[in-house]
């Protein structure tokens, strides 16, 4: 993970050009979509490189910090903090009545930390839990910020302040100073996360244990919160106060679906943040002066939905496929069982069963049975000639195993768990498909290698299964309260 992050570094420094802003990209508006797309990729506009570099940098720092928020279940903290910094932005502006990135950064960070402190205070001194405390801080700080914004707008020259861009973000309005700030924050975040990776991970996973082994848990926690505040505040110009929490949460949430290792999650989250930032800047540019924040969030949302559908283990598609193959497996085994039972009825005096018979036994339409038998034939379990179905050696083995599992389980339930004989069939129908080799050995041992199930049917032995030997036709069920005719 360290290596991947280090590789990203040179690419970032590039994002701070010294060119003065000739024309804001937002001023160019009379071209078609294609023309604008070409303009975007040819980097003709000097403002564009700021916008693009800034958006990518903020994607990285938000992605990294967001990963911590998601695994620590603090996603709402990001939301509250990003709204709470608004009064700080206004105060930073009032400092010398200009959009000085550093003054705004400092003002917003201080107010953001004040907001986080208020949440902490409410939680520890009142009976309120975190959610109510977050809700209070988010709304009240945001409200105060809006009031301050309106006041500034009413000041002489205030209506040209450009502060309205802080609401939904305008990457194109970023200057070299903004990009420099974003680069510093991204470097700080990456440096801290790479250097203190194991500490941050332990504190996030098991805080009690972290303190027990003597880690400076408080310091680690506050440093993470400070980095989070930095990431939020530096991103405001590009994404806006309202949607910056989405840049924290969405790439991280998508990464959480894609991997089971925290290091990979951090890299994925930062990477997806970077892509999201770049694409947000692109759409905002192409879409004629559109706010950047919503476009970034739309892109991130698209990535999230993609991860939700396609993630290898936790994705909807892979889960659906797994379920389907399980259902297929069960249908297959049930048909093999039916063939076995049909042969057993005649004491294995014949080697073939007709398709019609099976359809009746399975209580299914003939075509359905035919389709399933065809699938079994392709899998090499049965051979079919005309209407007659017979087992291959593998088919015999698997059929026997399923019947054995079913009867063993029934016997186990009746003898060990004292469940009535007529209550066990349903349960065994499910269990027979999931019993592993080891479970079977345990069950057989527990049941003293009994060869008769509670209904008096024969339980196939390992001998019979392995060597394809048919159970002798002589033995008949007796003495078990069997329902079979004597």
């Amino acid at each position: 993970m360290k290596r991947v992050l280090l590789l990203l570094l040179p690419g970032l420094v590039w994002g701070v050009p010294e060119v003065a802003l000739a024309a804001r990209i937002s001023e160019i508006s009379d071209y078609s979509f294609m023309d604008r797309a070409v303009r975007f990729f040819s980097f003709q506009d000097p403002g564009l490189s700021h916008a693009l570099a800034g958006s990518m940098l903020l994607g990285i720092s938000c992605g990294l910090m967001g990963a911590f928020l998601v695994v620590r279940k603090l996603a709402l903290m990001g939301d509250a903090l990003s709204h709470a910094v608004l009064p700080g932005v206004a105060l930073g502006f009032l400092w010398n009545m200009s959009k000085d990135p550093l003054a705004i950064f400092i003002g917003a960070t201080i107010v953001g930390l004040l907001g986080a402190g208020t949440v902490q205070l409410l939680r520890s001194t009142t009976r309120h839990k975190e959610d109510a405390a977050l809700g209070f801080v988010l709304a009240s700080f945001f409200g105060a910020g809006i009031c301050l914004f309106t006041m500034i707008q009413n000041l002489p020259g205030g209506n040209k302040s450009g502060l309205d861009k802080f609401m939904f973000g305008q990457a194109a309005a970023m200057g070299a100073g903004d990009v420099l700030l974003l680069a510093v924050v991204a470097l700080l975040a990456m440096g801290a996360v790479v250097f203190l990776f194991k500490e941050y991970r332990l504190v996030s996973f098991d805080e009690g244990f972290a303190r027990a082994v003597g880690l400076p848990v408080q310091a680690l926690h506050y440093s993470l919160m400070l980095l989070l505040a930095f990431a939020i505040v530096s991103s405001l110009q590009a994404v806006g106060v309202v949607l910056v929490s989405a840049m924290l949460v969405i790439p991280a949430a998508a990464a959480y679906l894609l991997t089971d290792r925290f290091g990979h999650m951090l890299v994925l989250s930062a990477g997806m943040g970077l892509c999201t930032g770049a694409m947000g800047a692109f759409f905002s540019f192409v879409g004629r002066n559109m706010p950047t924040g919503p476009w970034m969030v739309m892109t991130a949302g698209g990535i999230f939905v993609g991860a939700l559908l396609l993630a290898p283990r936790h994705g909807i598609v892979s889960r659906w496929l797994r379920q389907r193959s399980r259902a297929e497996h069960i249908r297959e085994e049930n048909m093999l069982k039916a063939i076995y039972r049909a042969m057993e009825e005649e004491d294995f005096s014949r080697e073939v069963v007709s398709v019609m018979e099976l359809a009746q036994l399975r209580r299914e339409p003939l075509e359905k049975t035919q389709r399933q038998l065809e699938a079994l034939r392709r899998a090499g379990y049965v051979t079919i000639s005309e209407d007659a179905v017979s087992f291959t050696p593998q088919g015999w083995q698997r059929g026997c195993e399923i019947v054995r599992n079913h009867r063993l389980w029934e016997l186990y339930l009746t003898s060990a768990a004292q469940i009535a004989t007529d209550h066990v069939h349903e349960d065994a129908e499910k269990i027979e498909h999931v019993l592993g080799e080891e479970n079977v050995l345990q069950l057989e041992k527990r049941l003293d290698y009994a060869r008769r199930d509670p209904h008096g049917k024969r339980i196939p032995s390992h001998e019979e299964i392995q060597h394809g030997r048919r159970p002798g036709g002589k033995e008949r069920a007796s003495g078990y309260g069997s329902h079979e005719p004597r």
Partner: protein
Amino acid sequence: MNAPDPTSAPPLEVHDLTVAYHKKPVLYGIDLTVPSGSLVGIVGPNGAGKSTFIKAIMGLLPLASGWVKIFGKPYRENCRRVGYVPQRETVDWDFPVNVMDVVLMGRYGHLRLGQRPTKHDREIARECLDKVKMLPFANRQIGNLSGGQQQRVFLARALAQESDLYLMDEPFAGVDAATESAMIAILRELRSRGKTLLVVHHDLSSVKDYFDRLILLNMRLVAYGPTEEVFTPETLQKTYGGRLTILSDVAQTLGSQR
């Protein structure tokens, strides 16, 4: 590491320990000294303060009064000599880490800030995983384990700490009988190597079998001493208060063991 020395300070000395939540005391004036090389059970009803006691020893909770010494020093200075198994429910098992990651966390106390685990640390972690028979699961995400397997991972992590005093909060919760006996064998082996273990335990029927000493706790120290002296119907009644149903249950298990 200084080897445990029988003549040196005891592994754990607790004096007048009182812990309060929101000014409401949950543990009053606990006084006890645990000698080296003993396997000590902590027993008491729900809400008796068993977990609180363990956490207070490690300074995870603020003390209202009293002090704790680990091998004669405050916990902060000797935290490397203490291994910890927290309750299983205290962590999020969906957290994106695998079994090996978790066991390696036991080595962090021996590493500097920012230092990566070394080959030696990995070797130790692997041995500990092997000891609890979880080595084949080293690369599994921890959420895919059964309760008993998760408990064994926590035990392996504590073993990887290579400590002299172990504090374990219900290590047998949600563990099947076979695993429990394998785990107790590991604890006994640690004891035979001169380690000291404090174990919060729920199942009174196995107390006599498992522990040399018992701490009977119910917001105060009801009794403390060698198991055969302390584990009597009288002290149990004191510990479990007037809840006669439990008492009679226990009396029955006691009777059946004789």
